[in-house]
C-alpha cells in the first residue's frame, strides 16, 4: 500500500480510533459498521471492530472475526497489522502477534515487519528466533545495528542456558563482536559495541579482562558515570582475586570520598580475603601477615576519621564493619580486635553522641547489634541511659528537636535490644503516655511526629498480637487518626491505619487514605497487599471489581511500557539496559498480586455482574487456555510485596516472625487465588459443554478434569488451613485473606456438590438416559446447608455484650455466603441449559390411549406409557432444578434480614474504655472517639448496604 493510500485509510479509520481512544467502544463498533457499509473490503475496520468487541469483553465474537482474517497468505497493510497487534495484546494472546508477523514477512519481508517480528520474539523471550531474524535483517538491510541485535540475542540465550552460554554462545558472541568492530570500527556517538563487549566479558566471568576493559580510555564512552566506572573496576579486581590491587585503588580515593560505602566495603573485604588465602600452617608468617593487614586498615580508618571530624558517618561505621567482618572470620590470633578497631560498645556510644540528631542513627547502629554479646548489650544500654540523663538537662532552643531524636534513639535501642520485654505493663503505659505528650508537643515537626507515633504504637500492636487486646488496638487507631488527620506529610501513620482497617473491613477510610497516600503505578503492585482483598471480604463487590480492573490496567500498561522501552533500547544500542528491563517485565508478569487481581476480577464479575450465560462461561473459563497460551503456573509466581514501608524496632526474633509471615501470606494468596481460579474453571467448563462452538469430547474431558482439580485443591486448602487458623497479626502483615474461613464455611463444598452433579448429569444425558431429581439433592437438604451458610449472627454469652468489632466476622461470612449462593445459581443455570441441550428421546407424540386389543398390543401400550413417564423425568428434573433457585433467593433474603437485625443491635462495635490511665492523653483520644466510631459504623453499614443491593439485584 502506498503512502497516499495509507493516508486515505487512516483518515477513514480516524473516527474509529477516536472512539477507541476515548474508551467509547460501542460507538467504535458503530463507526466500524459505517466504514464497512461504504467500503466492505476494509480489513482494518473489521479488525478494529474485533478490538472494540474485545474491549467490551466479547472475546468469542472478536475471535470469529480475527480467525477469518489472520490466515496464511493474507497480505495486510501496516494499520491493519497494528490493529491485529492491539487485539492480541488486549486479549493476552501474545504468541499470536508472533504468528501474525511470521505470516506477514512471508508476504512482505519489509524491514518494518521483520523488526516487529524481532520485538514480538523478544517479548516472548524467544532469543534463538530473534537472533535469526536479526541476522536476516542485517543481511537484507545491511545495517550493523541489526548485527548487534543478533549478538545481543546470543548473549540473552546464554543467560537462559548458562552451560551452553559459557561453552559456545558467549565465545561466539565475543568473536562476532570482535570481527564486526574490526570491520566497521566503533560506531561514533554510540556505546553499542562497548556495552556488548563488556556484557559478554562479564557473562563469561572474565573478570581480569573486565577490569582492564573499564580501565581503558575508550570505556569512558560507556553510559556510566566516571565514579561508577572506577568502582566497577575495583569490583572486577575483587572478583578476580586481585585484592591487593583493589585495596590500593580504594585507598587512593577513600580520603576524597570518605562516605562512600562501596569503598569501605572493598577496603574491609580485601584484607579479609587475603588472610583467608594465606596458609595458617605457616603460623608465624600467617599471624604476622594478618596482623599487618589489620593494622594497616585500622590506621587508615583512624586517619580518615580524624580528617572527617564527625561530619560524615562513613569512617565511623567502617570500624563496625571491620569488627563484624574480621569477627566473622574468626582468624587465629585475631580473636580480640579491640586493640585495632576499638571497643564496640565505646565506639557505639561515641557514634550515638555524635550522630543522634540524624534520624538514621538508629538504623546505622542496628546493623551491628548482632555483634554485641549480652554483657555488651547491658553496657551499651547503661551508657545510653547516662548519656540521655546528661542531655536531658541541656537547654534547647525553640524548633530544635535534638532531644526528641535522642529519646527516639534511646527507646528504639532499648526495644531492639530486648529491654521492653523485661518491663511491666505499667512501664509500657507510662512510656506510651510520655510519647503521646511528645507527639502532641507544640511545634513538633511532622516527620518527628510520624516516627514518634510509629514507635508509640509498637506496644499496642504487641498487646493486640499477643493477647488480642482490642481496647489497645482501638486506642492505636485513635492515636493514628489523631496524627494522620493533622499531619499532611507523614505516610507512616496512614499506612499503619490502612493495615489496621484492612482487618476490620473499613473500606471507606481505606479508600480515602489510599488516595491521600497517592499510591500509583508500580506501587499498586508492591503495596497492593495492604488493601487486597478487603473490598471482597467486605462484600463490596463492585468496588472490588473496580479495584481489580484498575490493577489489571496498570499491569497491562506497565508491560506495554517496558516492552516499548526494550524496543527503544535495541534501536539505540543501549544493550546494558535490556536484561534488567526483561527481568522487570518478568517480575510483573509473574507477580502474585497481578494473578490474584485477575482471578478475582474474573470470579466476581462472573458471579455478580454478567447477565449473559455465554459471556459468563467465557469469563469464568478465562482467556488463558482455549487459544493455546500457557495457563497460570502457580509455582512460578513471585512475591513483589514491599514489607519495608512500615518500620519496626524489634529484637532479632521478630525477623523470624516476619520471614514466616511473608512465606505464609504469600502461599495463602496463591492458594486462595488458585481456589477461586479452579472454581471458575470448573464452573466455566459446565457452561462450555453447552456451547455450540466447542468440541463436545474436549468439553467433557475438560469438565471432568477441572472439577477434579477444584476438588483436589479444596481438599488441600481444608487440610493446610484448619478452621482454627487466624490471620497474621504482625503490624506489617497484609490484609487478611480469610482462606480458612472460606474453606470451612461449607460454601465451596456446596459448589463442588453441584459441579460433581453436573459431571454425572452430562454422562447420564450422553448415554440417552434422563436424570433423577436425587442427582442434585432435595430442596430440604439444600435449605439445611444454606441455613448453616447464612448463620452469620454472632453467638452471645448470656447477659454479656458482644466483644468490640463483633460485626467484622458476620460481614466476611455474609460476603462469602453471597459468593456461594451466586456460584450455585450459575451452576444451576448451566445445569438447566445442559438438560435443554442434551436431553434426547423427548416424546414427540403422546402415546395412544385407546383400549389395547390382545396381549401384544397391551404390552406395546404399557411400554409406551413407561417410556413417556421416563421422558417426563427430564422435565421433572428441570422443574426441580428451577425450584432450587427459590431456595437460593430465600437464603439471600434471610441474609438480608440478618443484616437489618444486626444493625439494630445495641452492642457497640468499639471498646467502651479508651485511654485508661493516660491522663491528658486520654481526653485527647476520647475526643477523637465519637468521630472515628461513627466512621467505622458508616463503613459497616456500607458493607451491608452493598450486599443488600447485590441480593436485590441478583437473587
Amino acid at each position, binding site marked *: 500500500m502506498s503512502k497516499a493510500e495509507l493516508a486515505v485509510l487512516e483518515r477513514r479509520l480516524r473516527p474509529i480510533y477516536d472512539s477507541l481512544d476515548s474508551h467509547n467502544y460501542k460507538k467504535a463498533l458503530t463507526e466500524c459498521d459505517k466504514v464497512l457499509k461504504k467500503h466492505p473490503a476494509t480489513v482494518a475496520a473489521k479488525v478494529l471492530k474485533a478490538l472494540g468487541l474485545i474491549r467490551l469483553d466479547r472475546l468469542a465474537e472478536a475471535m470469529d472475526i480475527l480467525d477469518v482474517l489472520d490466515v496464511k497468505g493474507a497480505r495486510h497493510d501496516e494499520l491493519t497489522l497494528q490493529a491485529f497487534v492491539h487485539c492480541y495484546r488486549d486479549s493476552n494472546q501474545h504468541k499470536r502477534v508472533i504468528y501474525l508477523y511470521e505470516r506477514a514477512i512471508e508476504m512482505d519481508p519489509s524491514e518494518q515487519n521483520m523488526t516487529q517480528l524481532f520485538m514480538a520474539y523478544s517479548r516472548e523471550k524467544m532469543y534463538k528466533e530473534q537472533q535469526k531474524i536479526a541476522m536476516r535483517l542485517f543481511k537484507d538491510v545491511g545495517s550493523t545495528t541489526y548485527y548487534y541485535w543478533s549478538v545481543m540475542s546470543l548473549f540473552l540465550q546464554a543467560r537462559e542456558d548458562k552451560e551452553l552460554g559459557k561453552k559456545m554462545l558467549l565465545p561466539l558472541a565475543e568473536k562476532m563482536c570482535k570481527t564486526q568492530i574490526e570491520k566497521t570500527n566503533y560506531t561514533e556517538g554510540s556505546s553499542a559495541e562497548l556495552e556488548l563487549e563488556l556484557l559478554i566479558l562479564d557473562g563469561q566471568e572474565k573478570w581480569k579482562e573486565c577490569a582492564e576493559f573499564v580501565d581503558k580510555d575508550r570505556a569512558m564512552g560507556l*553510559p*556510566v*558515570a566516571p*565514579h*561508577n566506572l572506577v*568502582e566497577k573496576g575495583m569490583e572486577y579486581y575483587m572478583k578476580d582475586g586481585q585484592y591487593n590491587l583493589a585495596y590500593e585503588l580504594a585507598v587512593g580515593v577513600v580520603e576524597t570520598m570518605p*562516605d*562512600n*560505602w*562501596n569503598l*569501605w566495603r572493598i577496603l574491609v573485604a580485601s584484607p579479609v580475603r587475603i588472610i583467608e588465602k594465606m596458609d595458617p600452617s605457616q603460623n608465624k608468617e600467617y599471624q604476622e601477615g594478618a596482623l599487618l593487614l589489620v593494622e594497616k586498615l585500622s590506621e587508615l580508618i583512624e586517619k580518615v576519621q580524624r580528617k572527617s571530624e564527625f561530619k*560524615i*558517618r*562513613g569512617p565511623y*561505621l*567502617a570500624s563496625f564493619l571491620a569488627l563484624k567482618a574480621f569477627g566473622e572470620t574468626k582468624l587465629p590470633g585475631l580473636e580480640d580486635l579491640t586493640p585495632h578497631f576499638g571497643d564496640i560498645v565505646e565506639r557505639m556510644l561515641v557514634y550515638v553522641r555524635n550522630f543522634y*540528631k*540524624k*534520624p*538514621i542513627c538508629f*538504623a*546505622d547502629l*542496628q*546493623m551491628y547489634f548482632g555483634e554485641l554479646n549480652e554483657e555488651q548489650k547491658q553496657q551499651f544500654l547503661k551508657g545510653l541511659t547516662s548519656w540521655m540523663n546528661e542531655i536531658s538537662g541541656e537547654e534547647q532552643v525553640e524548633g530544635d528537636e535534638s532531644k526528641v531524636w535522642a529519646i527516639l534513639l534511646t527507646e528504639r535501642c532499648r526495644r531492639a535490644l530486648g529491654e521492653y520485654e523485661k518491663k511491666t505493663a505499667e512501664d509500657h503505659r507510662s512510656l506510651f503516655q510520655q510519647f503521646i505528650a511528645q507527639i502532641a508537643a507544640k511545634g513538633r515537626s511532622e*516527620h518527628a511526629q*510520624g*516516627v514518634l507515633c510509629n514507635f508509640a504504637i509498637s506496644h499496642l500492636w504487641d498487646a493486640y498480637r499477643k493477647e488480642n487486646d482490642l481496647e489497645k488496638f482501638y486506642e492505636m487507631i485513635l492515636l493514628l487518626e489523631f496524627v494522620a488527620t493533622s499531619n499532611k*506529610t507523614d*505516610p507512616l501513620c496512614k*499506612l499503619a491505619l490502612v493495615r489496621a482497617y484492612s482487618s476490620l473491613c473499613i473500606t471507606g477510610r481505606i479508600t480515602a487514605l489510599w488516595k491521600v*497516600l*497517592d*499510591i*500509583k*503505578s*508500580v*506501587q499498586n*503492585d*508492591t503495596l497492593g497487599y495492604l488493601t487486597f482483598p478487603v473490598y471482597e471480604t467486605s462484600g463490596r463487590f463492585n468496588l472490588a471489581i473496580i479495584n481489580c480492573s484498575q490493577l489489571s490496567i496498570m499491569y497491562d*500498561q*506497565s508491560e506495554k*511500557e*517496558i516492552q*516499548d*522501552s526494550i524496543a*527503544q*533500547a535495541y534501536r*539505540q544500542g*543501549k544493550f546494558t*539496559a535490556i536484561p*534488567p*528491563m526483561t*527481568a*522487570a517485565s518478568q*517480575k510483573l508478569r509473574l507477580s502474585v498480586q497481578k494473578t490474584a487481581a485477575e482471578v478475582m476480577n474474573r470470579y466476581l464479575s462472573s458471579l455478580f455482574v454478567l447477565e449473559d450465560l455465554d459471556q459468563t462461561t467465557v469469563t469464568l473459563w478465562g482467556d488463558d487456555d482455549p487459544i493455546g497460551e500457557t495457563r497460570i503456573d502457580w509455582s512460578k509466581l513471585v512475591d*513483589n510485596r*514491599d514489607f*519495608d*514501608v512500615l*518500620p519496626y524496632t524489634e529484637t532479632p526474633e521478630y525477623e523470624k516472625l516476619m520471614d514466616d509471615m511473608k512465606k505464609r501470606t504469600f502461599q495463602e494468596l496463591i492458594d486462595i487465588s488458585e481456589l477461586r481460579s479452579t472454581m471458575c474453571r470448573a464452573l466455566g467448563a459446565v457452561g462450555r459443554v453447552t456451547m455450540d462452538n466447542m468440541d463436545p469430547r474436549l468439553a467433557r474431558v475438560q469438565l471432568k478434569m477441572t472439577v477434579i482439580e477444584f476438588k483436589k485443591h479444596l481438599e488441600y486448602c481444608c487440610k493446610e488451613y484448619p478452621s482454627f487458623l487466624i490471620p497474621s497479626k504482625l503490624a506489617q502483615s497484609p490484609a487478611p485473606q480469610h482462606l480458612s474461613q472460606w474453606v470451612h464455611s461449607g460454601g465451596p463444598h456446596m459448589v463442588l456438590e453441584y459441579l460433581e452433579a453436573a459431571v454425572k448429569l452430562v454422562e447420564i444425558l450422553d448415554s440417552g438416559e434422563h436424570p433423577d431429581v436425587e442427582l442434585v439433592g432435595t430442596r430440604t437438604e439444600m435449605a439445611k446447608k444454606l441455613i448453616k451458610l447464612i448463620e452469620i449472627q454472632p453467638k452471645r454469652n448470656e447477659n454479656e455484650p458482644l466483644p468490640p468489632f463483633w460485626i467484622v466476622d458476620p460481614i466476611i461470612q455474609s460476603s462469602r455466603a453471597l459468593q456461594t449462593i451466586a456460584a450455585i445459581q450459575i451452576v444451576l443455570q448451566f445445569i438447566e441449559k445442559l438438560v435443554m441441550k442434551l436431553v434426547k428421546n423427548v416424546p414427540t407424540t403422546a402415546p395412544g390411549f385407546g383400549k389395547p386389543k390382545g396381549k401384544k398390543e397391551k404390552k406395546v401400550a404399557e411400554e409406551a406409557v413407561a417410556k413417556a413417564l421416563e421422558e417426563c423425568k427430564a422435565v421433572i428434573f428441570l422443574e426441580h432444578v428451577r425450584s432450587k433457585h427459590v431456595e437460593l433467593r430465600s437464603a439471600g433474603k434471610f441474609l438480608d434480614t440478618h443484616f437489618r437485625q444486626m444493625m439494630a443491635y445495641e452492642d457497640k462495635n468499639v471498646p467502651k474504655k479508651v485511654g485508661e490511665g493516660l491522663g491528658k492523653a486520654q481526653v485527647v483520644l476520647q475526643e477523637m472517639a465519637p468521630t472515628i466510631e461513627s466512621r467505622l459504623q458508616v463503613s459497616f453499614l456500607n458493607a451491608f448496604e452493598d450486599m443488600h443491593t447485590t441480593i436485590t439485584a441478583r437473587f
Partner: protein
Amino acid sequence: MTTLRPFDVDDMFKFNNVNLDINTETYGFQFYLHYMINFPEYYQVAEHPNGQIMAYVMGKIEGRDTNWHGHVTALSVGADYRRLGLAAYMMEYLEKTSEARNAYFVDLFVRVSNTVAIELYKKLGYVVYRQILGYYTGERDEDAYDMRKSLSRDPEKKAMVPLSHPVHSRDVD
C-alpha cells in the same frame, strides 16, 4: 555512609520509602526507563548499607547553543535519610556530570510551596530564574519556580539573570 550507584529497574519495586513522600510523584515505567536508557549517568540512587534506597536523582542534558544545560528532573530523599547532606551531595554530582558534558548551567523546577527545597537550592547557589504558571496539574495544581545555577562555561552567569515576569507553562519548552 552511602552507595551512589546507577538506577536499576528493580529499584522501582522498593522505592516506596522515598516515593511515599508527599512531594514525590510516582510515574509509570516508561518515565523511569526513558531516563535509565537515555541518561543513565544522570540517574543515580543512594543506597544505605542495609539495602534501603535513601534517595535518588534523575536528570538529563538538553538544549542548544547557550541553552545547552543539565536539568534536574527529580531529586528525592527518604524522610529518614534527611539531614545527611544527601540532596547537596547528589546535586553536586549532577552539576559535575553536567560540567563534564560542557553544559552552561543546571536548572530545575520546584513547587512554589516547597519552601524547604527552595531554601536548599538557594543555599547551593541556585536562583529563581522565573515563575511558571500552572506548571503542576492534577491533585494539587500549583505554579513552579524555574531555578538555575550557572556552570563554569557561563562565567558571567547570564543564565541566572531572572526574568522580570512569570511565564505560562504552555510557553515553556
